């Protein structure tokens, strides 16, 4: 324990919470099956040749013309829902992670840069970010994706633009605290160039709170993407994410064909809850007040 690097100690402590380990396993599993979707899915939902309208809207457990059981039923086009969810998960995760990464890089650079620069530049950057935080993320994302048009890249830009401010705020707060610490003054008095101080000293020490924000924001990005796709302004129809699957089944809800909406919904909830549980655990670990 004592001889381990900070990362190894972090993992040893993380492991103590069984909930968090299970949640992490769920996240890893979902990422895994999303990556391997073409291999594990019973059907390729994009291949129209596999679809048959006579199989449409069948309940879970139905054995279709393809000769295999539709464990979660089929949708309005006769598409196997399990396969559609696996492929949808792929797109949702991809959107969440890529948008989260963009937001992370942009927000963290702005936040730490502002904290390091200080003075007017800091004030300007942070006021712009405060201004943006005054608008709900969903509103910004809606406006942006509506004006940028449909498409993966456009949606990523919209999601990242709606979320980078959270990273910037957190990074700024953490970096301002680190900036005044002795070890930063020590390297400044060596002296080392500014970029080096920021990258090798300030940034790594700001990481714990940023990792927490990152997990939560990836979950938020996935939810946001699902919302936008549900409303029809997110991804094009050719990229059916979980949100779009839910939207597709929505009209059948009241006619008793619950599975078309509910199962993608459950997949989405499980994914978001699992990511949030992992994030909660990391936050508890990072919070010095809860330290034993």
């Amino acid at each position, binding site marked *: *324990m*004592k*001889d381990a*690097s*900070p990362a190894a100690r972090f993992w040893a402590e993380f492991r103590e919470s069984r909930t968090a380990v299970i949640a992490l396993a769920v996240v890893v599993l979902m990422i895994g099956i999303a990556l391997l979707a073409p291999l594990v899915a019973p059907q390729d939902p994009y291949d129209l040749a596999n679809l048959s309208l006579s199989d449409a809207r069948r309940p879970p457990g139905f054995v279709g013309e393809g000769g295999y059981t539709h464990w979660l039923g089929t949708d309005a086009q006769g598409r196997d829902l399990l396969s559609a969810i696996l492929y949808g998960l792929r797109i949702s995760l991809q959107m969440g992670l890529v948008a989260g990464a963009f937001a992370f890089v942009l927000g963290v650079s702005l936040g730490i840069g502002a904290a390091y620069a200080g*003075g007017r530049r800091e*004030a300007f950057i942070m006021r712009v970010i405060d201004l943006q935080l005054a608008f709900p993320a969903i509103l910004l994302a809606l406006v942006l994706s509506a004006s940028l048009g449909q498409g993966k890249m456009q949606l990523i830009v919209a999601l990242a633009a709606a979320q980078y401010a959270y990273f910037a705020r957190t990074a700024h707060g953490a970096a301002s605290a680190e900036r005044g*610490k*002795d*070890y930063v*003054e*020590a*390297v*400044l*008095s*060596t*002296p*080392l*160039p500014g970029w*080096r101080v920021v990258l*090798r*000293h300030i940034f*790594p*020490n700001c*990481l714990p709170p940023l990792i927490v924000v990152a997990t939560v924001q990836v979950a938020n990005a996935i939810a946001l993407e699902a919302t936008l796709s549900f409303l029809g302004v997110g991804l094009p129809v050719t990229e059916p994410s979980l949100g779009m699957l839910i939207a597709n089944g929505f009209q059948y809800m009241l006619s008793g064909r619950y599975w078309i909406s509910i199962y993608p919904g459950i997949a989405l909830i499980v994914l978001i809850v699992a990511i949030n549980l992992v994030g909660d655990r990391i936050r508890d670990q990072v919070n010095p007040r809860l330290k*034993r």
Partner: protein
Amino acid sequence: MSDAPLLEVTDLTTHFHTRAGVVKAVDGVSFALKRGEVMGLVGESGSGKSITGFSIIGLIDQPGRVEAGSSVKLEGRELVGLAPSDLRKIRGKQISMVFQDPMMTLNTMLTIGTQIRLALEAHETVSGAEARRRAVAALAQVRIPDAEAKVDFYPHQFSGGMRQRVAIAIALLHRPKLIICDEPTTALDVSVQAEILAEMKELVAELGTALIWISHDLAVVASLADHVCVMRHGRIVEAGPTLAVLTHPQHPYTQSLLDALPSRSEPGKLLAGGVGSDIAPPPRLARQVPPAVADAVHYVRIEHVAKRFTQTPGLFRKLAQKAGLSKAPTVVQAVDDVTLVLKRGEALGLVGESGSGKSTLGRVAAGIYAPDHGSVRIDGSAVMSAGDNPHKVTTRVQTIFQDPFASLNPRMTVGDSIAEGPLAHGLVERAQAKTYVRQWLAAVGLDPDFATRYPHQFSGGQRQRVAIARALAMQPDVVVCDEPVASLDVSIQAQIINLLIRLRQELDLTLIFISHDLSVVRHLCDRVAIMYRGRIVESGPAGAVYDHPQHDYTKRLLAAVPVLPGTATT
């Protein structure tokens, strides 16, 4: 009522059951305390002295536990195993406690009067007027001037010493039979400490309260306590009358604690308590051999340096100031026109109490802060660049900071921390960096294999050695040491002082040594400069200043230092 002990502690054992195993913080401590007696509990950090205090009053939290078989008897009544509600009736009423940091124990959101009233109401019913009258009386008792008005102050309106007096006033409210003070003067300046010690002595005599004074400072305990217990590793290694223990210690540990004190040793000599390593530092790197020194007498010139801190008002505050809603920002003149000249190889001690500007001056000299006015030159070349956005341009001056826990990047191995500067400045090639780091770790008395470890794996003293290695690996000619031993235990302090003495000689370093501890400065420095409110009030050869202080402030400062009995300079 006469000779029966007030407090009888037998076999007190407090263990902490942690993930890493059982930590025996207090391991079978026994002592007895008579009415009105003052006992000093001395030990280094981790010796279990504070936990002993907390155990007596029942303030041990999970995962800590006072183990079975322990006994704490107050006037014959067993306190171990008492229900929390019963303990609460005793706490504050019969036994009260004063902690190290009064800012942490006073509620910043309530006035002093309210807090005293709450403390009163914990054990009795009092009317508002009565509570106020007693609050004023309590403050007056601890010599707070103008108590009538001060009752309505908030803690932040008091100085550190005043806050500690308030904490003592609250502890005395119910006339407890016993007060446990846990390092109550450690965070205070020497002159304030001297006042509080004198007052505490009077109060204890006046009220007949017994006192347990927990401290790491032998001299403080000596000035107050009737008898002392020296603790180490959760056990009492030596106990007895103060004078006997301090002048004729029986246990080798007590002896080594006393030997580690710089005040008991001849200035400049290695301290007996801190056995150092004998590995020589690596030789000066060829390309870093300093050029011929142009002016060895005026080697470091700090000329008319001034530094003030202002809070630059934002847009809204500016508007508010214009409208008269907000006051002009406070300006702190930290350093006010200081001129100092150091000879090459000289060690200058910069002494002052907190807020005197000594750290700011040190940071200006080290090129961390740009002065508002004046300049710092080493051998004729400026430390910082000129212009609007000045930055440090030389590596010839390096810094060692006070807190070794804060001054090392927790996410870098110590080897990387030491190698980073020299690599960035091309002092060593990447290929030789490992060997270079190992040489320096050996030179500061650490195992060279420690290079791959992280700071959290080291003790405070070891970290300070790493910090010294990091500063010296830059091949500086001048080193600014900002309280490098202030946060260390005496025995560790002695080792670090020895290390600095040795390295200074071997590397021909010029030292600026900042400290509030007069005895350390006397031991290490050739010359001292006394700082007070941003100015240097007196400077000269160490011996002369200490023996014949000229300025009133210097005299006061020297008089406030607690002295050990039998401190004969041998």
